[in-house]
């Protein structure tokens, strides 16, 4: 099995989906000759040709809007938005059209499209290149919102997203694009889009996270284990629809929960998860739910971004705070 990076796994999944299904198209800014600014679409133009992999003019609203039209015609467009800070014009198309088309027409038309974008900071990029935007999308009815945290997840979840009959927003953490490699079998097997993943088992505290923050949560769990604290780590991966099953089951055992995400605190998916724990798992808790997140500040420029992004230290401290309750 080849070892690939997360961005390599995205590339592998795109190629596999295009190989398997001639209706899959890749479009966006610089996705063709350049292979994408992160190289996620590298080599696809040569392999699948300019009718299936094409550069668009620089127009985010119409990249998404054109994908709606293509999808309504039965194509499966995978549209790339180059950086998360440029995704906002495309939200109009996602909320007003992509997410509503099936419902508006009682399934006469549907919208099997994927909108891919990098999401989050940590790559010393310019202003407007490092925002975490998942909160905007999870409030949109009719969309699925997926955030991979590893090469294997990126491969399996992106395949699932492309094959899904409804629109999916697929937010890739650029901090992880080349941070680690793992073996990924290019076997065309998709993961479920309806599942949260338990990626480390433990009995003392539950760490709930997704995307790039999975790295800090896992590092914190290692560190805590050295002190005899066994943390269970759950990678939510699919933020909408949200699978609370593994989270509630874990909290029932541990009685303690720390939610970790890079997006700003207020109104982000962490708030939803905490609310659902309060609704359905409150009696299991022995300590208040903790949240370790980005602050409600503008995403700082690169000199301060490390202070913004939840660190392993902050996750450990939050876990230890929950342990202060008997």
């Amino acid at each position, binding site marked *: 099995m080849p070892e690939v990076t997360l961005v390599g796994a995205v590339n592998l999944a795109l190629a596999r989906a295009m190989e398997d299904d001639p209706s899959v198209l890749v479009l966006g800014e610089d996705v063709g000759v350049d292979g994408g600014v992160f190289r996620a679409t590298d080599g696809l133009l040569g392999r699948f040709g300019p*009718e299936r992999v094409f550069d*668009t*003019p620089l*127009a985010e*609203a*119409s990249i*998404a*809007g*054109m*994908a*709606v*039209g*293509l*999808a*309504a*015609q*039965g*194509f499966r*467009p995978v549209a790339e938005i180059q950086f998360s800070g440029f995704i906002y*014009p495309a939200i*109009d*198309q996602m909320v*007003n*059209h992509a997410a509503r088309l*099936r*419902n*508006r*027409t*009682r*399934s*006469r*038309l*549907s919208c099997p499209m994927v909108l891919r974008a990098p999401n989050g900071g940590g790559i010393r990029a310019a202003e407007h290149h490092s925002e975490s935007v998942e909160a905007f999308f999870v409030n949109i*009815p*009719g969309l*699925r919102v997926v955030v991979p945290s590893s090469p294997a997840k990126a491969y399996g979840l992106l395949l699932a997203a492309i094959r899904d*009959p*409804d629109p999916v927003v697929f937010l890739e953490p650029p901090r992880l694009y080349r941070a680690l490699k793992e073996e990924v079998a290019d076997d065309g097997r998709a993961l479920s889009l*309806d599942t949260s993943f338990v990626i480390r088992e433990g009995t003392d505290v539950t760490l709930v996270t997704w995307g790039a923050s999975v790295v800090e949560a896992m590092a914190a769990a290692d560190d805590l284990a050295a002190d005899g604290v066994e943390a269970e780590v759950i990678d939510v991966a699919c933020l909408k*629809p*949200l*699978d*609370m099953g593994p989270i509630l089951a874990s909290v029932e055992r541990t009685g303690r929960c720390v939610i970790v995400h890079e997006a700003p605190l207020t109104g982000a998916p962490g708030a939803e998860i905490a609310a659902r724990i309060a609704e359905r798992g409150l009696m299991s808790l022995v300590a208040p739910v903790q949240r370790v997140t980005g602050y409600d500040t503008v995403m700082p420029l690169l000199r301060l971004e490390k202070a913004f992004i939840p660190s392993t230290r902050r996750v450990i401290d939050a876990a230890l705070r929950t342990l202060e309750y008997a």
Partner: protein
Amino acid sequence: MAVATFEIGFTRFLDRSGEVVQPLPAFASEAKALIPLYRSMTRLRMFDAKAVALQRTGRLGTYAAALGEEAVTIGLASAMAADDVLVPAFRDQGAQLWRGVGLVDILAYWGGDERGSVAGPSEDFPVCVPIGTHFPHAVGVALAIKLRRQSRAVVCIGGDGATSKGDVYEAMNMAGLWQLPVVFVVSNNQWAISVPRQRQTAAATLAQKAIAAGIPGEQVDGNDVIAVRHAVDEALAAARAGRGPRLIEAVTYRLGDHTTSDDATRYRDDATVSTHWAEEPLVRLRRYLTAQGVWTKEDEEAMQVALAAEIEKAVADYLALPPPAPQDMFDHLFAVLPADLKAQRDTLAEEEALHA
């Protein structure tokens, strides 16, 4: 350095008196052939009036009548082939009706029932309410048609207000770049709700906005259904033959309120509107048909009686349409309802049962 010079043509066949001002296109060479257009425009006007009356009496939601713009919406639809794709805005019930959507479907949609958007040609889009945001959809549909090497095309309609949107320019730019089979029609009714055409843009015409996108733009008399039909005919023929997109600005006038929620007397006086009644599209066509000896007072009366009966029947069917079950709001959101939403659906059903 002049890199481009341009002229914006203006086409009219029938003037306000119903006089022919230049040789008619082939489809109009027999006056009788225009009767279906006249009938459909009259049907639309009568239907719109009924819909407004229903709204005024609390039996319909907000409604956007096409009063004064009948020639645009009927004319463009009449030029389309069955397998062309319509991407309409919210005032295009006339085009939808021409293409087979039922009166009862239009009423259902504006009466608050999504089932009203099911009928019609299977690939046509439902009406678009957020201004101009459907223009990129037309690009996507046209790209799909081009990729499949099909000989058909897309017609996308917006108002003068939509031409202020970036989406519309983006769509024209992409359609021009890729020479896509799409015809953009701007129904310039002179008003973006309360803002008149001259306070929307410094451009002398809306048609010339196409020039910067590298596509042809032209104006037609939007109150002359022959001119609209002819321009869209030609643009569709070019699009289907791989010669790329066009923009047609149909110059017309909104004789009514923006919608039933609007009161146009707040921003324009009746005297101005009255002058535009002299230009409206139905009278000039009727004058022409009458002068040609293919339409009589008796024909007019018989048509109006038949249309009134058809509309009354549709209203009765609409009013008898049972509302969807509340759970219906969940049932078409996804191909397969996710478990998380199924729980919410169950909660709604339980509450409904509890309070039934």
